[in-house]
């Protein structure tokens, strides 16, 4: 057995002022860093994309490397709603209710063609994208997407979290977005 070089890297410090014995940065950045690397996802898996997500959580791909090993099956403790699979119109109100039960700050990722746009199911019984009922932050294309793509989607969510104002939910844009979905 040959010794593999260690490739573990730590999360880098945000921009700030460093001196002997102190480091100063904005609170936004510190909290963003902490949130981005400890996302609790709620897997809302209805079909084959959910199977890809199981592979993503497994040892080969291991979403835990990005701080998301703790899945939350209660929406009240989840940060990220991951909708993976076809959502029938009858299921639409359920997705919406799960979203409403999540506390701010909350993010949504639509994994796969069906959750993003209805996919191949252009039919009367299928919701043509979950953005018809809840706002979506990141779309992951694919039918189904490979685990690498799902991880890429999660890292995009991390970038959003790191760079977003802590007061996002108080901004007029965010309020207008939610109002357009009839939320609050």
């Amino acid at each position, binding site marked *: 057995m040959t010794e593999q070089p260690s490739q573990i890297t730590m999360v880098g410090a945000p921009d700030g002022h460093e001196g002997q014995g102190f480091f100063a940065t904005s609170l936004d950045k510190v909290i963003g860093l902490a949130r981005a690397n400890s996302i609790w996802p709620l897997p809302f898996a209805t079909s084959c994309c959910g199977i890809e997500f199981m592979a993503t959580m497994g040892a080969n791909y291991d979403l835990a490397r990005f701080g998301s090993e703790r899945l939350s099956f209660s929406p009240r403790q989840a940060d990220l709603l991951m909708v993976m699979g076809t959502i029938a*119109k*009858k299921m639409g109100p359920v997705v919406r209710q799960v979203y409403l039960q999540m506390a701010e700050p909350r993010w949504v990722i639509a994994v796969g063609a069906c959750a993003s*746009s*209805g996919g191949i199911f*252009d*039919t*009367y*019984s*299928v919701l*043509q*994208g979950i953005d*018809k009922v809840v706002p979506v932050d990141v779309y992951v294309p694919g039918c189904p997407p490979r685990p690498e793509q799902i991880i890429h989607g999660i890292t995009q969510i991390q970038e959003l979290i790191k760079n977003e104002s802590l007061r996002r939910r108080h901004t007029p844009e965010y309020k207008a977005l939610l109002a357009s979905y009839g939320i609050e």
Partner: protein
Amino acid sequence: MAGLTTEFVLEAIQSRFENEIIHTDTPYGMLTLEVLPASVPAILQFLYEDDRLRFRFLTDLCGIHYPHQTAKELGVIYHVHSLENNFRIRLKAFIPEANPEIPSVTSIFRSANWQERETFDFFGIQFKGHPDLRRILNMDEMSYHPLLKQYPLEDPTRTDKDDKYFGR
């Protein structure tokens, strides 16, 4: 028990329901009877109770829509199976779209309950005497019966498809 033959089953039904049978056929070797809609429960009851036939399993109950078949646009199709004789037959009954009513067979087969609800959901066929006729698969808010041919299969709210790429 001796196996049933198509001739024997046909003869047994015809001798009892001569005027109720409109047409008989054996497509792919399966006895198929077109019958008057009002007589469906009586025929199924007879098939169920007759000691020689014993058709006691309702395999399937479904609807169909032929928009060009005047006054017989909607159909209900019953597949029944005699498990003891391993013999299957099929009954068809056609009703006008303007008045889509047919008697329910839930009093004979309890399993017809959900199948009739499904047929109502997709074709709007009213099963008279059904204990709880409401939608079963589609969302309750749906305002039409989607398998009727006049309604499009595709969803009108789809936004990512450009018609010119799909020949529309």
